[in-house]
C-alpha cells in the first residue's frame, strides 16, 4: 500500500492546489513533494536488499475483461529512479518558492509538476504493461503545458514538436505491447519477464521488440530520433528542463531494460548490435553538436543525447556490468544534468539570456559561487573520476569490452573505442564552455549591472544534488549495490 500512497500523495497535492488560493500554492507544492520524498526515503528503509525481486507490491484486478491489473511493485532497478524522481520534484518545488517564469500562476504550474510526478512515479512502479503505458502517457500532457505556457519565445513550436514525437513513440510502444498481448494474452510484466518471451514466435518477438524499442528510443532519446529534445530543452522553463532531463529521459531507458530486454531476450540479442551502433553515433553526434552550440541550454540538451548514448551502449552489451552501468549512468545523469539545468536557469535569471556569446565570460568574477558551482557541475558531467559522471560511462565501456555471448566482439570493441573518443570530445566542449562562460573578464555591458550571487533558496534546492554528485562519484556502490541483484536476476532469467 505504501506504493499507492506514493502515487496518491502528489495527486492529493494536485487536488489541494486546485482548491486552495494562489498564495498558498507554493507552500502546498513544497509540502506535497516533501512528504512524497519522505515516503520514498521510507521505501529505502522498507526495501529488503537481501531478498531481491519485486517488493511492496499491490496487485488488484482493474479491467478483468482484458486482464488489465493495477499492479505495482518495486525492485532494485526501479528503486533508485523512484528516489531520484521524488528528490528532483521536491527540489523543483523548493526552487519555485522564489523563481517562477512568466506568466506566473504558481497554482497551475505546481499542479502540473505534481501531475507529472504521479506519471513518472507510476511509470517506474507499474508492473502491468497497460498500466505502464497509461502512466507513460500521463506524463505527456503536463510536460506539454509546462513548455507551452511557461516556455521561452518559440515555446509553441517546441511543445508541439515534443508532443508529436513522443506520441509517435507511444503509438509504436502500444503496438509493441499489443503484439505481446496477442501472443500471451497477458499484460503481467512479472509473468512475462519470467517466461522470457517463450510464448512468442521469433518473428513476433522481433516485431514486438521493434515497436517497444522505437517507442522507448524516442523518449530516451536515441539518435536519430532525438531532434525534439534540443528544442524542448531550450524553450522549457528551468523546472521543466530539470524534470525532462532528470527523469523523463530515464523512462525510455528504464522501459528498454524493464520491458524490452526482460520480456523479449531473444529479440534483444538480435537488435543489440544496432542499438550499440546507434548509441555510439549518438555519443559522437551529440558531442560534435555541442561544439558548435551558441545557446547554453541547447548545448546541455545535446550533451544529454551523448550521455544517454552511454546508457544505451551499456544496455546493448546485455551483460550485468553493462546494464548496471546503464542504470548508474541513468541516475548520475539525472543528478548532474538536473543540477546543470538549475544552474543555467539561474544564469538566465540574471543575464536574461542563455546565449554564450551574450553572457561573454567572467561569471566567476561576477558571481563567484554560481560560477564555481557551474564549473563543478560541468566537470562532473564530463566524467572526471571521483564525481558522479565517471563510473557509469567507464563501466559501460568496460561492458562493451566483453559483451554478452553471441554478440560480435569485434563490433563492440570498435564501439568501445569510438565511445572513448566521445568522452574526449565531451571533455573538450565542456571545457570550452567553461572557458567562454565562467573564465575571462567580465564584458563591458555587464560591468555596471548588479545582480546577486546564489540565494539561499537556490542553494537549498541545489545542495542535495551537489552532495549526491560527490557521493555517487566516491561511492558508486550506493546505486550498484541496489541494482546488481535485480540486473543479474533479469539477465539470468533470459
Amino acid at each position, binding site marked *: 500500500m505504501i506504493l499507492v500512497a506514493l502515487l496518491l500523495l502528489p495527486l492529493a497535492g494536485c487536488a489541494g492546489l486546485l482548491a486552495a488560493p494562489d498564495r498558498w500554492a507554493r507552500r502546498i507544492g513544497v509540502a506535497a513533494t516533501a512528504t512524497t520524498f519522505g515516503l520514498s526515503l521510507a521505501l529505502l528503509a522498507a526495501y529488503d536488499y537481501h531478498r531481491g525481486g519485486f517488493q511492496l507490491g499491490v496487485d488488484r484486478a*482493474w*479491467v*478483468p*475483461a*482484458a*486482464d*488489465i491489473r493495477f499492479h505495482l511493485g518495486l525492485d532494485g532497478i526501479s528503486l533508485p529512479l523512484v528516489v531520484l524522481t521524488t528528490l528532483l520534484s521536491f527540489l523543483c518545488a523548493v526552487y519555485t518558492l522564489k523563481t517562477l517564469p512568466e506568466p506566473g500562476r504558481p497554482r497551475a504550474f505546481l499542479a502540473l509538476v505534481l501531475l507529472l510526478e504521479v506519471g513518472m512515479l507510476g511509470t517506474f512502479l507499474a508492473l502491468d504493461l*497497460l498500466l505502464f*503505458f*497509461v502512466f507513460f*502517457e*500521463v506524463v505527456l*500532457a503536463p510536460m506539454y503545458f509546462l513548455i*507551452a505556457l511557461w516556455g521561452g519565445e518559440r515555446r*509553441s513550436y517546441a511543445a*508541439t514538436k515534443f*508532443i*508529436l514525437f513522443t*506520441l509517435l513513440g*507511444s*503509438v509504436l510502444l502500444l*503496438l509493441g505491447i*499489443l503484439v505481446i*498481448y*496477442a501472443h500471451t*494474452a497477458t499484460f503481467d510484466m512479472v509473468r512475462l519477464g519470467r517466461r522470457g518471451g517463450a510464448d512468442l514466435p521469433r518473428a513476433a518477438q522481433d516485431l514486438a521488440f521493434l515497436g517497444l524499442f522505437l517507442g522507448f528510443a524516442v523518449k530516451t532519446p536515441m539518435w536519430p530520433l532525438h531532434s525534439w529534445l534540443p528544442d524542448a530543452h531550450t524553450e522549457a522553463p528551468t523546472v521543466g528542463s530539470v524534470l525532462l532531463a532528470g527523469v523523463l529521459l530515464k523512462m525510455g531507458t528504464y522501459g528498454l531494460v524493464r520491458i524490452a530486454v526482460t520480456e523479449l531476450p531473444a529479440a534483444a540479442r538480435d537488435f543489440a548490435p544496432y542499438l550499440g551502433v546507434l548509441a555510439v553515433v549518438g555519443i559522437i553526434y551529440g558531442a560534435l553538436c555541442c561544439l558548435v552550440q551558441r545557446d547554453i541550454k541547447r548545448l546541455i540538451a545535446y550533451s544529454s543525447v551523448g550521455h544517454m548514448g552511454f546508457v544505451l551502449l551499456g544496455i546493448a552489451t546485455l551483460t550485468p556490468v553493462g546494464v548496471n552501468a546503464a542504470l548508474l549512468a541513468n541516475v548520475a545523469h539525472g543528478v548532474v544534468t538536473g543540477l546543470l539545468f538549475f544552474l543555467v536557469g539561474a544564469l538566465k535569471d540574471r543575464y536574461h539570456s542563455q546565449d554564450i556569446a551574450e553572457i561573454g565570460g567572467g561569471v566567476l568574477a561576477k558571481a563567484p559561487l554560481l560560477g564555481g558551482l557551474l564549473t563543478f557541475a560541468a566537470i562532473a558531467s564530463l566524467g572526471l573520476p571521483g564525481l558522479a559522471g565517471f563510473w557509469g560511462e567507464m563501466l559501460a565501456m568496460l561492458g562493451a569490452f566483453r559483451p554478452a555471448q553471441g554478440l560480435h566482439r569485434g563490433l563492440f570493441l570498435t564501439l568501445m573505442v569510438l565511445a572513448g573518443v566521445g568522452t574526449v570530445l565531451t571533455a573538450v566542449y565542456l571545457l570550452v564552455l567553461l572557458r567562454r562562460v565562467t573564465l575571462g573578464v567580465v564584458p563591458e555591458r555587464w560591468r555596471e549591472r548588479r545582480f546577486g550571487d546564489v540565494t539561499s533558496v537556490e542553494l537549498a534546492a541545489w545542495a542535495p544534488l551537489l552532495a549526491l554528485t560527490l557521493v555517487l562519484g566516491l561511492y558508486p556502490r550506493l546505486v550498484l549495490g541496489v541494482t546488481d541483484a535485480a540486473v543479474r536476476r533479469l539477465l539470468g532469467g533470459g
Partner: protein
Amino acid sequence: MPFAASIDYAAIAPPLLAVGTALGVLVLDLFVPADRRGVALPVSLAGVVAAMVATGALAAGDDRSTFCTAAGGCSYAVDRFSLLFSGLFLLATAVVLLLSEPTVRAQRLPAGEYHFLLLVSLTGMITLAGSRDLLLLVLSLEVVTVPVFVLAGFRRADPRSSEAALKFFLISVLATAVLIFGASLVYGVTGSLQLDQVAAALARPRLRQPVTSAGIALVIVGFAFKVSAVPFHAWAPDTYQGAPLPVAAFLSVASKAAGFAGLLIVLLVGFRGYADVWGPMLAVIAALTMTVGNLVALRQRYVIRLLAWSSVAQAGYMLVPLGVAASAYGRARVLDDAAAATLGYVVFYAAMTLGAFACVVWVAGDRPRNAVADYRGLARRSPLVALALAFFLACLAGLPPGLAGLFAKVVVFSAAVRGEVVWLGVVMAVNTVVALFYYLRLAALLFAPEDRGSAGVPAVEPPDGPASRPVAVAIAVAVVVTVVLSLDPELVLHITPLAGRG
C-alpha cells in the same frame, strides 16, 4: 398467441413514464403563453429523471419479464442488458435535451414538439432494449426512427436540413423494409417471432437451409443501416451536417446505440446457433467500416462531418468482437465475452461522443460554420471547454488520459485475439493509428495560437448568457461520466450478456 399472464406494469414503468412525459410536454405547450415556453425543458428533464429512478429501482430488484405467451417465451424482458441500455438512452437523452436548449431558443423552434419527438424516440429505445420478439423489435425501431425524421428536418428554412431529413427518411425506410423482409423469412422458417422460440427452432438441423441464412443476413443488413456500418453508411455524414446539432448528437449516440442493442438481441438470443453465418459477415463489415470511416475522416474540413465519419469508424470497432463469433462457435463463453466487449464499447462510445458533441454545440454558439479552422485557439477563448474537448478526442483516439477509449479498444482487441480472428485485430490496430492523426490534429489545433486577422471574423465573446448554461451542464455531465468510466471500466464491462437457448 394469447398472453398467459397479466401485464407487469412495473417492468414497463420506464417507457410509460417517458411516453407520458412526451404527451405531457406536448399538451403543456398548447396552454403555456409563448413567452414561457422555456418550461418545457424542466418538465422533460423531470420526466427523464423519473424514468431513470424507475430504471434504478428495477435494477435493484430481480430480472423480470412480461408479455409472455402460453408457449413459455416472453416478448419483453427486464434484465441487466436492457437496464444498462435504458440507463444509457435516458442519460443520453437528458444530455441532448440540455444541448438543445440554445438551438431551440435561437432558431425559435417549437419547444413542445421538439421535446415530444425526442421523448417518443426515447420511449422506442427503451422498449427496444427490452424486446425479445422480432415484431416488437421492429416496432420499437420504427418508434425510435420516425420522430428523428422530423427532428432532422426541423430547421425548415434551411434546405440542408430538408435534405438531411429526406435522405435519412429514404434510407431508413429501405432499411426497415429489408429488416422486415428478413424477419418474415425467419418467421416463415421457424414459425415464430418470439426470439427464444426462434432460437429453439433454429437448433433443429433440418432448418439449416439457404433461406434461413438469407433471412438472418437481411436482418443484419437492416441493422447495419441503423448503426451506419459500411457499405450502408452513406446517409450519415449528410444527415448529421444538415440536422440541428443536438439532433446529430442524438443520432450518432442514442440512435446508434439503439441499433446495436437490437443487433445484439437478435444475434445473441435468436440467431446464436448461426454464428458461423453471421460471424464472418460481421467481421468483414467491421473491417470495412473502420477502414473507410477513418480514411474519409482524414480529409474532413468541417468538425461535424469529422465526427460523423469518426462515428462510422467507431461503429466498426464495436462490430469487431461480434466478428469472432464464427470461431467462437460452440464456445459460449467466448461469444458472451465478445458481446460484453461490444456492449462496453457502445457505452464508452456514447459517453465520449456525446461529450465531443456537447463541446461542438458550445463552439457553434459563436462560430456556426463549424469548420476545423474555427477551433484554432479555442484554449484561449474558453479554456475549460477546450480541455474537455481535448479529453474527449483523446478518448475517441484511445490514448491516455482518455482511458475510457483506451480500455474500450483494448477490450475489443482482446476479444478479437481470444476469438482467434487475429487479422481483424491487426486491421483494428492499424486503423487506430490512422485515427490518431485526425483526432490529434484537431486536439492540437485547440491549443495553437490564434492567427489574428486572417480568419476575417471579428472575435466574438463566448456565449456566457443563460442560453449556454445548459450546454455547460451537459459538458460537465459527459466529463463526469467519462472520467468515472475511465477509472472504473468494470462498471459496464461485465454486464451479463443476453441469455439465449441456442
